[in-house]
């Protein structure tokens, strides 16, 4: 069964942590640099997130995402290095493209922040099975119906892609050209998207009927086939994160 998710199955301690605790970590890792705007705080958070990625043995899988991010960061370095409003100290380059120390510093700050945010999210995404995350959220009070929607998307999306391929075939069978100049391909958009939307909505309606008669709308308490999992170090993690957050707020107020 084809699905798409960035989750990498591994047997690491980080994989075994409660998904909710990982969300809390992500929030903390993004919040602390917001509370403490010093570059050192950002840098520290980034280092921690990166080393946790290494500890979970998912560094290789995070590279494609970082590669894309670094591509944009390169343009950030150029633009900020050349045009940052606070630029004063020229370093090298030819007018008007002169790199300045302040701009490069700014770009560096942006780079660290972006890397930190992306790493914090990646830690959650790469080490958590989406279904486990959803189940934990529903057990914590997320509406089971929303939980169902989140779960089902991982399978409905590939189904829709299959439908799209069939529709492409059906329209090509009626002589629709889908390759060639830009205009030919733009013209092909409507004959493709309309049936995709239509058949998806018809399927959605049929699925709604089937879900309805299987109690998706039931008001009472639900139960689970899977036994509730126990996750290690939950209390310690939450305590630690709370401490870090409080400490940084205190620091900010006092400093």
């Amino acid at each position, binding site marked *: 069964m084809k699905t798409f998710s960035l989750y990498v199955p591994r047997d690491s301690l980080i994989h075994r942590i409660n998904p909710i605790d990982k969300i809390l970590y992500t929030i903390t890792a993004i919040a602390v640099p917001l509370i403490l705007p010093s570059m050192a705080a950002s840098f520290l958070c980034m280092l921690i997130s990166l080393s946790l990625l290494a500890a979970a043995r998912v560094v290789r899988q995070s590279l494609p995402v970082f590669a894309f991010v670094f591509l944009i960061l390169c343009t950030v370095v150029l633009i900020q290095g050349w045009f940052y409003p606070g630029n004063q100290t020229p370093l090298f380059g030819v007018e008007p493209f002169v790199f300045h120390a302040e701009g490069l510093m700014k770009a560096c700050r942006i780079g660290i922040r972006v890397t930190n945010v992306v790493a914090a999210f990646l830690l959650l995404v790469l080490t958590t099975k989406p279904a486990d995350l959803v189940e934990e959220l529903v057990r914590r009070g997320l509406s089971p119906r929303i939980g169902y929607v989140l779960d089902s998307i991982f399978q409905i999306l590939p189904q829709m892609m299959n439908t799209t391929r069939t529709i492409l075939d059906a329209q090509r069978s009626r002589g629709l050209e889908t390759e060639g100049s830009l205009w030919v391909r733009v013209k092909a958009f409507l004959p493709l998207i309309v*049936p995709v939307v239509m058949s998806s909505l018809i399927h959605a309606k049929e699925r709604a009927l089937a879900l309805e008669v299987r109690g998706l709308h039931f008001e009472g308490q639900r139960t689970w086939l899977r036994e509730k999992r126990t996750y290690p170090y939950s209390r310690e993690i939450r305590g630690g994160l709370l401490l870090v957050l409080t400490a940084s707020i205190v620091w900010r107020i006092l400093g």
Partner: protein
Amino acid sequence: MSRVVVKDVCFSYRSGEEVLKGITLDFDEKSTAIIGQNGAGKTTFVKLLKGLLKPTRGEIYILGRSANEMTAAALAPFIGLVFQNPNDQIFRSTVLEEVMFGPLNIGEDPKGARKKAEEALEMVGLTEKASENPHDLRLSEKKLVCVASIVAMEPEILILDEPTIAQDHAGMAAIRQVIRRFKEQGKLVMGILHDMDFAAENFERVVVFHQGTVVADDDPREVFSRESLLQRAGLEVPHITRLGWSLGRKETFLTEAELIQSLRGEGSTDR
């Protein structure tokens, strides 16, 4: 004259899993039913004929042209394929426009396309629905709209993928009518079918697919007389054939009329 020539064609979606394993077939204008279990390779086979897939080995010729080198759109004027699920193609806001889409794509002018579309709609009995939104029709009617949308392109070869699914008596009659018209015009009709009764009654040749190979290819009477082979391919004999055999007849009956005639004939000799 050969309309379609298939030479030693193999196909696999993923390497190592061959869906078709060396198919060699030759089609003249005899109407042909393609039967077999789900997953036997029937739909893959017609997609290859239509140029939607390209064989991993072997060659296909449509009316003398090599299908291996032509796109599905380029093949559209010669060979038409009606897909199983009508919701996979309908996108215009009236039935008439939907049916005109194909002819317009293959270079027909609006007037000519309209005329052909109207004729095709008449053939499937949907003339009255021409100005309705196709999405407001019933599934069975939508299927007929799709049949008309291919018929209107006047292809030399027509392939129907499971046309009888979800059809009631009236819908079946419309499909029968289309098949008869194509036969009358000397054009080749092929149908992928799960309904053995319909296959026995309306087609002059039956090809049986099983696990990516052709295990039988003959006129219907011959194919439907081989019960053990059909069983192996996960198929059944037509109800009327079964009734004939159960009455101790040796022959393979394909239509009610044949059996009734035989029963009447014998009844009278008894007297």
